[in-house]
């Protein structure tokens, strides 16, 4: 992705900035200057809105043949997430066993590296999601010896 093409949408990616349509009272992500459901009237009525970054899994899949740039994750979980405010987005669910992600699970946004242009190119950062409730039994961390003094 070229530098300006990424830079133009920085806040949409970093801070989940989308739009709120004052006419239909609906939320949109990514940012739109026009609400297709409200038509021309919506131009000028779309207000920037920062999503809270919490939502639910609508559906998910475990990707075994990785997308270009995602090879180091394989296998990884891709999901369609419905944000609390309404809109849906496609996102990777990280920091979890991808096979345990199921529809209805609650998720929250995290700031992660999305990729890079090349080894010498610009780095792309943005939003991914993690499960917001721990689905596994906590591991035992008590096996550490006392600190030797």
């Amino acid at each position: 992705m070229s530098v300006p093409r990424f830079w133009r949408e920085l806040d949409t990616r970093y801070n989940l900035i989308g739009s709120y349509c004052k006419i239909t009272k609906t939320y949109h992500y990514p940012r739109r200057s026009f609400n297709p459901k409200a038509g021309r009237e919506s131009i000028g009525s779309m207000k920037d809105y920062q999503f809270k970054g919490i939502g639910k899994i609508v559906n998910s899949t475990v990707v075994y043949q990785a997308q270009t740039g995602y090879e180091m994750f394989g296998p990884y979980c891709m999901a369609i997430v419905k944000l609390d405010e309404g809109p849906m987005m496609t996102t990777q669910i990280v920091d979890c066993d991808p096979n345990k992600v199921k529809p209805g699970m609650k998720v929250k946004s995290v700031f992660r590296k999305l990729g890079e242009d090349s080894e010498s190119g610009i780095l792309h950062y943005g939003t991914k999601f993690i499960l917001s409730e721990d689905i596994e039994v906590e591991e035992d961390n008590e096996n550490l010896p006392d600190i030797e003094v």
Partner: protein
Amino acid sequence: MNGIVSYGAYVPCHKIETGEIASVWGADGSAWAKNLNVYSKSVSGPDEDVITIAVEATRQAMKRGNLNGDHIGAIYSGSESHPYAVKPTSTIVAEAISATPNLTAADFEFACKAGTAAIQTCLGMVGDKQIENGIAIGVDTSQGAPGDALEYSASAGGGTLIIGSKNVIATINDTTSYTTDTPDFWRREGQKYPRHGGRFTGKPAFFKHVISCGMMMMERAGTEAKDYDYIVTHQPNGKFPIRAAKTLGFTNEQFETGLLTPRIGNTYSGAIFLGLAAILDIAKPGDRILAVAYGSGAGSDGFDITITDKISKMDRSETVEDMISRMKIVNYATYAKYRGKLNMGATK
């Protein structure tokens, strides 16, 4: 008085055990673990780096402090593993907390104490009323060369302190530094892994600076070890900080809370921030903390800190301990994959 307005921390959710690393090199894992007093270390994921960790820690600090971007006048990020050689980490953090454009920002490098130099800079600017609040960040995702002693400890993590004059949860009563030219550890431009002087990193480097700085700090503050509830120092392994604290006259109870390296490894610039965050997670009003950072090359920054009443009202959930207890074990193969230790060759 000026001091800490808020704080945040971040530890990645993967870890590798010392024994697993040792087994790859045919080394004695339990001997290494015991020798370094490091039993596991945090491992950042393939989509995590200094910038993402800095953003997560800073967002936690902003949320805890009920602050928004307009309150922030400066961001200084200290690290020796900034993803860019040229292009600041700090501007990305600024954008990610919506603090742009009315602020100043820069990245610092002073081995493992770049972040505490950022604290001192913020203190100066707040004291001079140039800014309302300044953000100091210390984060690293440093790497040890495979098989090198550093590989058993070099880990990932870091924290953020927001320095200001209003609503401080902890006053920074005073700060002082001890700096010399001591080449104990370095990384040349363009090199992937750092090099070090072996045992030279000990007595003439870490111990001399940390102990001298700690003594200077207490002398300036007119305090003794017993006046403090906690001490936290830089912790390149699990042994050095214990020996330094004991030399300065501190006891187990005073240093154990801030000593995280045995479980998460050496987070370099992040170490003192994480140790301090772990203390702030449980500290009570009136508690006094001595913090002494160390950066190779070499220098130490000391801080004399007192907790205020304001800390009782702060939401201190999602503690450093919570993050550590979330860490899941990965094997060496996964670690090598996550940390870019696999040579993939050119694909294009």
